[in-house]
């Protein structure tokens, strides 16, 4: 199984861990993720007015660079932007002509645009994944936190049922962990409000964490670096044992028995050697 891979800026920075663990897991699962040779930040937010064409240049260039092969990303925000930009290119001919003329490329909205969780569900299959698990996370009580960007708007994202999704729970089950369902799993974490209105994000995060804890979760998984940041940094310290927040891929690597901490140290060492020899 071969895919083109769009990392996005956060996965080369604060969310390096999501990339490292996914790469290690993918190779153990026989999934080849080939990073695009040249890429730029997707812009992080999809332009909601259709004349904001400048914001589409980068995602459309990325979509075209996949050359018709399925394009995979890991960050919920990147996937959201790419998927919606693709839908606009399919639907709005005028916007498409302007953007592709400017970029001097041919692109008509073709190719599959996938989040890595969709690859696991639809292409590999969770049954198959469960068979490949080496160290099932037995007894670990894990809640899914979907957030917004993977699910909504569901007509475009087509990721799962926006009100009652199951993909992350099925993923947790495949890892051998115990699924905990919390009612706030599809609520917004406050997104970039943590930058400008931190108090608002503290309120949303408190509800999400409380709801997960009340449901009995000891850990929570996300596919979004900003969700993770908010859940960790806007959480109130109430003296109780905090709910641990993980990228979905960290638990995946653990359940596959991969020594990803060691892998990460090795990757860091390689980067150090590479930059020393420049």
């Amino acid at each position, binding site marked *: 199984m071969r895919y083109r891979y769009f990392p996005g800026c*956060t996965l080369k920075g*604060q969310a390096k861990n999501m990339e490292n663990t996914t790469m290690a897991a993918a190779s153990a699962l026989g999934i080849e993720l080939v990073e695009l040779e040249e890429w730029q930040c997707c812009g*992080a937010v999809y332009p*909601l007015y259709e004349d904001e064409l400048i914001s589409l240049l980068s995602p459309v260039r990325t979509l075209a660079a996949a050359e018709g092969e399925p394009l995979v990303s890991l960050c919920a925000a990147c996937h959201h932007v790419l998927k919606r930009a693709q839908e606009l290119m399919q639907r709005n001919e005028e916007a498409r002509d302007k953007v592709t003329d400017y970029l001097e490329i041919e692109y008509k909205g073709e190719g599959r645009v996938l989040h890595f969780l969709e690859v696991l569900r639809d292409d590999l299959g969770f049954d198959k994944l469960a068979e490949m698990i080496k160290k099932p996370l037995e007894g670990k009580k894990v809640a899914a936190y979907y957030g917004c960007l993977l699910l909504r708007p569901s007509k475009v994202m087509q990721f799962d049922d926006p009100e009652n999704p199951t993909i992350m729970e099925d993923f947790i089950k495949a890892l051998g962990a115990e699924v905990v369902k919390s009612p706030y799993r599809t609520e*917004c974490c406050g997104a970039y409000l943590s*930058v400008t209105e931190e108090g608002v994000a503290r309120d949303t995060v408190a509800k999400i964490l409380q709801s997960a804890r009340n449901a009995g979760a000891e850990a929570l998984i996300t596919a979004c*670096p900003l969700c993770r*940041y908010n859940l960790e940094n806007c959480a109130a310290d109430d003296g109780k044992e905090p709910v641990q927040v993980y990228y979905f891929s960290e638990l995946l690597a653990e359940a596959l028995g991969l020594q990803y901490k060691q892998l990460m140290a090795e990757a860091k060492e390689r980067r150090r050697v590479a930059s020393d020899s420049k």
Partner: protein
Amino acid sequence: MTASNEGSRLIDEMKAQSGQDPADCYQCAKCSAACPVTAAMDLLPHQVIRYLQMGLEEELSNSKTPWICASCFTCAARCPRDLDLARMMEGVRLTVLRKREGNKFGPADLTPEQLEKLPQQALVSGFRKYNK
């Protein structure tokens, strides 16, 4: 207060650029019930639409609500009229930002500690939402 919908550039642009017509809203307020951040808003989401229906552009430009909206798309997921309120909020933000003097937020507003810890995604999306 200027309560006239006629010739409102905001509304005309909104219809063209977001495909949303505020007139389609029947004010059931399901969007406001769904919104996770109403506590910090001065107008509830359905009231923003009511103001749009009435053409109260200036009042909307001075409201906090569009800047509190996190574009989480929950309102749109629940609206029985299939309206995308997140796009309309964006329209109100853009009318302010496109005047060019209205930038709400820049790098100078960040503390060194925030710059150290925030994921790149937060910075890019924050600048995109609050700046032109």
